[in-house]
């Protein structure tokens, strides 16, 4: 599903976000990407959907060679991915329902399908009571769930979540994690970046740890100290 080989990312100006990262993630896995703030988690996720281009190395995601992917093909890659960015990106002047249906509309579904699928997604992330609320009327957790629902609009093979529990209290964090695990059980591969060790330690999943842009550990059923 994902393969990185000797991947480095150096920004203009010389700051090194990632250096010589190699790893593989198979279909159906649930993987945590952990590390302190600034360790390169977001950068790694952005490389996977070609928001950034690797300075060195090769990247393969959902059977596509991302490193040599021409820019006009980036949309094809992204339609196979679900992307939840670090800051919830919801349109302020649209309701939860509209924010989700917007994605389906952009993806070219017809009106009937849009309504059906939006309702299914809202049910999945448990936002039935907030579907007609606007983003500023939603809690942080609800916003994140709306973003997850939208990311699932294209039935992605792989879901990339950047700190979805970033500013949530533990109870709400667990809600989000449970949701992601449910999505994973339904067959979607999940890669989630976080700096929250308490969650990771409890869930006993595979853990990749980044430190200063280097991949320092990769453990099955991992713990994070």
């Amino acid at each position, binding site marked *: 599903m994902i393969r990185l080989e000797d991947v480095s990312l150096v920004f203009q100006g010389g700051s090194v976000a990632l250096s010589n990262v190699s790893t593989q993630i198979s279909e159906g896995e649930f993987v945590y990407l952990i590390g302190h703030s600034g360790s390169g988690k977001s950068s790694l996720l952005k490389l996977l*959907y070609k928001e950034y281009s690797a300075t060195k190395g090769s990247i393969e995601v959902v059977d596509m060679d991302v490193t040599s992917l021409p820019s*006009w093909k*980036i*949309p*094809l*890659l*992204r*339609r*196979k*991915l679900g*992307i939840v*960015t670090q800051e919830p*990106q919801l*349109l302020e002047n649209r309701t939860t329902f509209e924010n989700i249906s*917007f*994605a389906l*509309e*952009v*993806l*070219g*579904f*017809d009106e009937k399908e849009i309504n059906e699928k939006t309702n299914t997604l809202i049910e999945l992330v448990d936002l039935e009571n907030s579907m007609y609320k606007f983003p500023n009327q939603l809690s942080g957790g609800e916003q994140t769930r709306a973003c997850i629902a*939208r990311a699932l*609009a*294209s039935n992605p093979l792989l879901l990339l979540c950047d700190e979805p529990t970033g500013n949530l209290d533990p109870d709400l964090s667990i809600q989000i994690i449970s949701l992601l695990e449910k999505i994973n059980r339904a067959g979607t591969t999940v890669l989630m970046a976080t700096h929250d060790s308490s969650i990771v330690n409890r869930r006993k999943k595979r853990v990749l740890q980044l430190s200063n842009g280097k991949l320092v550990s990769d453990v099955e059923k991992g713990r994070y100290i």
Partner: protein
Amino acid sequence: MKKLNYVIKNTFINMRRNPLLVIATMLAVLVSSFLVFTTLSARAIVENNTSRWQNGVHVVIFLDDRVTSTAHKQLQETLENYPEVRMVEYFTKSEAMDEFKILFKDQPELLQEVDFDILPTSLRINLNNPADYKLIIERMEGNAAVKEIRASGEAIERLLSLTNTLVLSASIFAGLIGFAAFILIINTLRLTAYAKKKEIKIMRTIGASSTYIRLPFIFEAILESLIGTSIAVGLGWGFIQYSKTSFIADSIFDITISDSYLTNLTLILLFSTILFGFFASFVGIRRVLND
């Protein structure tokens, strides 16, 4: 096809965002297209009229009756040998009289009073190029057989140069106003793109292609321009139709312009408008939607 829904819907949503700018753009395109349409039509009308004259008589040489008819014939031959001359017709006194009678048949009092003997014999000259009338006048000057020379070329020339000046100055104004429309479109699109920054970013993340993201902007520019041009062309057709029956037609000359000329002009204008809108939108969103 389903995907067009989003594009068309957003074209209109975008246009509603800056209604004043959209109206200003349409007006600018309208004025510009109207200038192009009417002046090109006007020129076609003038050309049609002058080409009629061009097939007619360009120079008339009235002959002196005191010279012998042999001299008249000689002069005719000389003229016929000039390469600029297509045809020379010898118009006798009686032919002149017949023509006069026809021309003034409504005024019997006049016909009764006129002494037809004063109507001179003349040579009616048809030139290959009416502009060469000056050459003929120069060569005939001082010729004993010539009493007087009249040329219609002068009038035609003045009219054509007037039309050309009109077309040129209208084109310059059309160009300036067109440029204003161009700037208006660029600004409208940029305002919209800026306001929709977040939406566009989300679309990219979802996997919308950049063509798809651009299409509402391209459609908006083309649609605004096309509406302007369509109204202009409509007004232009109406104006010409009206002129055909109005006083202009009676007083100056026939409003003869073929429907196929107008149709072609319309199609070319509409097509240019599409290109114009496309190009303006291309410039307008090139930078803005690139990251």
